[in-house]
């Protein structure tokens, strides 16, 4: 392979890992700082991606309209798609939070899991909504005229990195504020936080909504990167499980860890692809399962032997305390 090919490949890797890093940061708000057990990330992934797709694509016209059905197409700019994705995910998180956040942490897990499966079913079975299992194609990409198409990934990498840094700064600010300290207090000991006069339900809700909005951003970034989405992308494996492994590997409760984890695990994931390419032909069809098996075993090893992850949680909580 030529050098330029290798660099292009690394850039595409960095974009996907960057998108996953945004997911991992969103999950870090919920799990790392508040202890909310969201195992339906794929649902927010799906909603974020579809919302942005519907907001930014034009309504199909002419012959095209016979093949593509969608509820609406607003033909808005990319940034509006991103924001709409975040708002929509926040709204859905709020609705899930109402019945579950007053109950034990398992209930939120089961409910988020259910909502992720339900969204996939709806997008698959309702062709009028977003073209059913065939999904939507031809999503617009921002600043497309800036460079040649073959160099476009560099532009998108910059966009992803900027979003990632923006989210990172926002979470760091939030978490080092009194608000962030309440979240951590809730995670450590709900009852004592409540006895200090903190409204547990509302703080948990804010954390759930904030984290889900970040996940919506990431879902939209993914949609405009691949330019085509269909419901079967958003499976529990690619949409939820791998993100959990990223956060646990990097270190939950640490935003740098969330980013490092995303890059490390995505690197391992791609690396195992090269390894399974060496397998005999008959086993190749099963290669993705072997790779996920390894990722699953990795998660168990982390949980058993290094639950704090690579970086672990930072102890410093305020910029005033050294």
């Amino acid at each position, binding site marked *: 392979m030529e050098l330029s090919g290798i660099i292009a490949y690394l850039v595409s890797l960095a974009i996907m890992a960057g998108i996953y890093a945004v997911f991992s940061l969103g999950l870090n708000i919920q799990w790392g700082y508040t202890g909310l057990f969201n195992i339906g990330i794929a649902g927010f992934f799906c909603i974020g991606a579809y919302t942005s797709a519907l907001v930014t694509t034009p309504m199909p016209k002419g012959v095209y309209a016979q093949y593509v059905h969608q509820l609406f197409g607003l033909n808005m700019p990319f940034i509006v798609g991103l924001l709409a994705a975040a708002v929509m995910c926040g709204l859905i998180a709020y609705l899930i939070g109402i019945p579950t956040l007053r109950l034990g942490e*398992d209930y939120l897990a089961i409910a988020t*899991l259910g909502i992720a499966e339900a969204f996939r079913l709806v997008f698959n079975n309702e062709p009028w909504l977003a073209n059913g299992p065939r999904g939507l194609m031809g999503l617009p990409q921002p600043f497309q005229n800036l460079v040649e198409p073959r160099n476009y990934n560099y532009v998108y990498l910059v966009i992803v990195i900027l979003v990632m840094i923006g989210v990172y700064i926002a979470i760091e600010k939030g978490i080092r504020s009194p608000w962030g300290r309440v979240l951590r207090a809730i995670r450590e000991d709900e009852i004592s936080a409540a006895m200090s006069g903190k409204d547990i339900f509302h703080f948990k809700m804010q954390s759930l909504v904030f984290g889900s909005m970040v996940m919506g951003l990431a879902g939209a970034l993914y949609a405009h990167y691949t330019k085509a989405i269909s419901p079967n992308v958003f499976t529990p494996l690619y949409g939820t499980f791998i993100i959990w492994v990223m956060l646990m590997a990097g270190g939950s409760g640490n935003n740098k860890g969330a980013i490092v984890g995303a890059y490390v695990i995505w690197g391992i994931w791609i690396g195992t692809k090269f390894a399974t390419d060496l397998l005999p032909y008959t086993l190749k069809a099963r290669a993705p399962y072997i790779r*996920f098996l390894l990722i699953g075993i990795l998660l168990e090893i982390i949980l058993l032997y290094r639950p704090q992850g690579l970086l672990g949680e930072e102890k410093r909580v305020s910029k005033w305390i050294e």
Partner: protein
Amino acid sequence: MLELFIYGIVLGGIISLGAVGLTLVYGIIRFANFAHGDLMTGGAYIALFLVTGLLSWIGVPDVIFSPLSFGVRMVIAFPIAMFLIGCVAIITDRILFKKLREKKSSAVIMAMSSLGAAFIMRMIILIIWGADSLFYRPGVLRPALDLPLHVKIRPDQIFILVAVSVLIAALHIFLNNSKMGKAMRATADNMDLALVSGIDTERIIIWTWGIGGALAAAGGMLYGIDVQLHPYMGWNFLIPIFAATILGTIGNMYGALVGGLVIGVAQQMSTAFLLPTYKPAVAFVIMILILLIRPKGIFGGSS
């Protein structure tokens, strides 16, 4: 409608077998076991290996109990698969959950670990058998019996109802009459009191996993007989069995039984109005409604 109701009872029976095991684990070991659905899948596939592989190699005759769609091999495979999946559940506990308990990890970490275990089990099944749907006996005709009131039912479905009833009755007798069963109920009620009374909780935990796993395997095999085998079958059962468990109050075996039947009937009846693919979503909506109205389930005290 009556027909759908009866199909719902059949599906509900299978859900109940999963839910009863889940609620026992939930009540005694106190975490949400997300691997329970995949134990069901595991049971179905081990039976597949026995029926189409091992038992035919060692020369067990392929006699079918007409009009049922299965025969001698399945009757032999059924208890073996239940036993093996019980062992798988116990081994998973020894490898993962026991260590996490000793490290005093929280229930959420154990639930996450079970999610990982679920994925590992499913990937092993996918690596060995691939992603296609499979049958215990492909191509066999399965005519339905015409019952009064325009109800068509397959003999297999009647068998499933009988099998579920027998398994639940056996569990009922075990829990009420054996020493181990009584100790299990005591532990579910109050673990500290059970410890003080000299009950060996580690032994209870082993029995709980064994029974939970075996019942899940039975549920998976019955679903395989009724419909088909698929690597994601158990995962698709996860929401219904959690819904049944919560509906019937976590830790309450009879509640899980009732919950399973209610969810199964609701799922089948919904196919009169909705696409059948929405069945998991129906269970999910019921679960959300229970959480809103009565989060402790029908057999729990008011919250």
